[in-house]
């Protein structure tokens, strides 16, 4: 059950150019968080109403002592404010929110496809489901300087292939190139992805063609994060036709066909 709580920042560390991992102290509210669920973080200081809205972030990993972390990229006022937090500062969190990735019980070999700041929920998935399935991660970034996460996958014993747009690290090209390679081998029976919208759309197409069940985690501008304001909707195919569903409530994870249909 979601709740609002305040906990302490334990540490911040840069993980790539303009990307930081923020580690926060254990709080029981997040003990049962599922991969793909997210938290909504207040970025203004108490007593300030600017910036007003909370900011959504996926969990990145959990530590042995219960501490947990997010990785964020500094893109605006909210993430700049986060980057200013120091160990010992309070952080005001609402969560866990949304519906996470579903583990299809019969699925044994899972491919995780992450692009940029879409990587965090997949690392959290890998960590949470470790031992329950064989996994491989495909990670895409614009360039080497922006890449992060592959060593964390390796530490879980999960191989991570990296693609960069400019070839400065790993494969030169899109992470979807790596995905096509993998799916050609017909070895995978589940696909989990998070990243920019064009990447998700490409992943959905490839997965559909290959007939592999595929879940995607979406992002949309959010007001409340809990389903009350109807800001964050996504047109989703339902039995009653295409309907707006809430990324924060019915999502952020949807089946690829729900969003993109078949092909």
């Amino acid at each position, binding site marked *: *059950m*979601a*709740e*609002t709580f305040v906990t302490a920042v334990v540490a911040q560390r840069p993980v790539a150019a303009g990307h930081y991992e923020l580690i926060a102290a254990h709080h029981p509210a997040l003990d049962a968080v599922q991969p793909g669920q997210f938290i909504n973080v*207040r970025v203004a200081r108490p007593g300030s*109403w*600017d*910036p*007003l*809205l*909370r900011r959504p972030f996926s969990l990145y990993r959990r530590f042995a002592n219960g501490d947990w972390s997010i990785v964020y990229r500094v893109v605006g006022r909210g993430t700049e404010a986060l980057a200013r937090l120091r160990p010992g500062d309070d952080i005001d969190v*609402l969560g866990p929110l949304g519906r996470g990735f579903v583990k299809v019980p019969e699925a044994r070999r899972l491919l995780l496809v992450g692009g940029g700041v879409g990587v965090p929920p997949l690392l959290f998935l890998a960590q949470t489901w470790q031992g329950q399935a064989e996994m491989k991660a495909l990670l895409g970034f614009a360039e080497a300087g922006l890449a992060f996460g592959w060593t964390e996958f390796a530490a879980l014993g999960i191989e991570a292939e990296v693609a960069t747009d400019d070839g400065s690290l790993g494969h030169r090209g899109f992470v979807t190139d790596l995905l096509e390679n993998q799916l050609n081998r017909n070895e995978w029976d589940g696909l989990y992805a998070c990243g920019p919208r064009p990447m998700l759309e490409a992943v959905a197409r490839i997965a559909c063609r290959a007939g592999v069940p595929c879940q995607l985690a979406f992002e*949309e*501008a*959010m*007001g*409340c*994060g*809990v*389903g*009350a*304001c*109807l*800001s*964050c*909707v*996504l047109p989703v195919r339902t039995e009653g036709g295409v309907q*707006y569903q809430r990324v924060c*409530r019915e999502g952020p994870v949807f089946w690829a066909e729900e969003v993109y249909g078949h092909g």
Partner: protein
Amino acid sequence: MVDLSIEIAGMELKNPVMVASGTFGYGREYAEFFDLSRLGAVMVKGVSSEPWTGNPVPRIVETPSGMLNAIGLQNPGVDYFLEVDLPWLRGFDTRIIVNIIGRSVEEYADVAARLSAAGGIDALEINISCPNIKEGGIQFGSDPRAAARVVEAVKRATHLPVIPKLSPNVTDIAQMARAVEDAGADAISLVNTFLGMAIDIRRRKPVLANVFGGLSGPAIRPLAVRMVWQVYEAVRVPLIGMGGIMDGADAAEFVLAGARAVAVGTANFIRPTAALDVLAGLERYVEETGLSYAELIGAAHPRRTARQEPTRPEANQ
């Protein structure tokens, strides 16, 4: 504990703190955070005769101490509301105020009639900020005559208390208030959101798919308080004040300006228990003054007789 119970438009409220329409869905989401029975009333998201799809995304954008929304009044329609949400909401010991929307006078009256027939609803709030399709899309809320026509039609269609909700995007809010009072309003809600927009300077396009959106949140509070103040001097019906209320002190400003009850909107998004925090803060405030809640309503006005010498509206910088 100090007693904040109050009567408004014939409804007994256990306390004057409501949640504002459109910021609280039909109650389900925030019911996971607290017991809705602790609220004075729930004003549910606007309901129309038929389901409305709403606008494409992006539907919101943050602005300094505020946010713009252009949800587009997405709602599943009155039948769905009556079947699914209302029975569930009735399980709580709170007043249920249903916000209604329409694109013509007839649509408003139709929703009002269907809701009234159902029972279990305490009052109707009329959102007059909808475009009037019969009159070229001009909002009902910016023309006193059109607003009055909606209120009259809804009054005829229902036995429930009728609470028009004023749009703040007008030159003379007191004139709008007098028009709906004369048309039979039992109370008045104010304010709805202020029309604004934001531009994405990278894409060189409006951020919102709908171009315009409604500004809410702390940024608008001084404008909303001013309007409550002016309307309090212009009409006799009770007022429900809202616009940027984040804590008990903000609510107290509205009460002192003349609001008999208050509604918490955008603050719910920041803290799901915001309405309870507002209530607790207001209780503390009332206690500190040593006065009764009723005595505080409009208490910042130099003289409190309605319709006499309204304060002259000039900023005068």
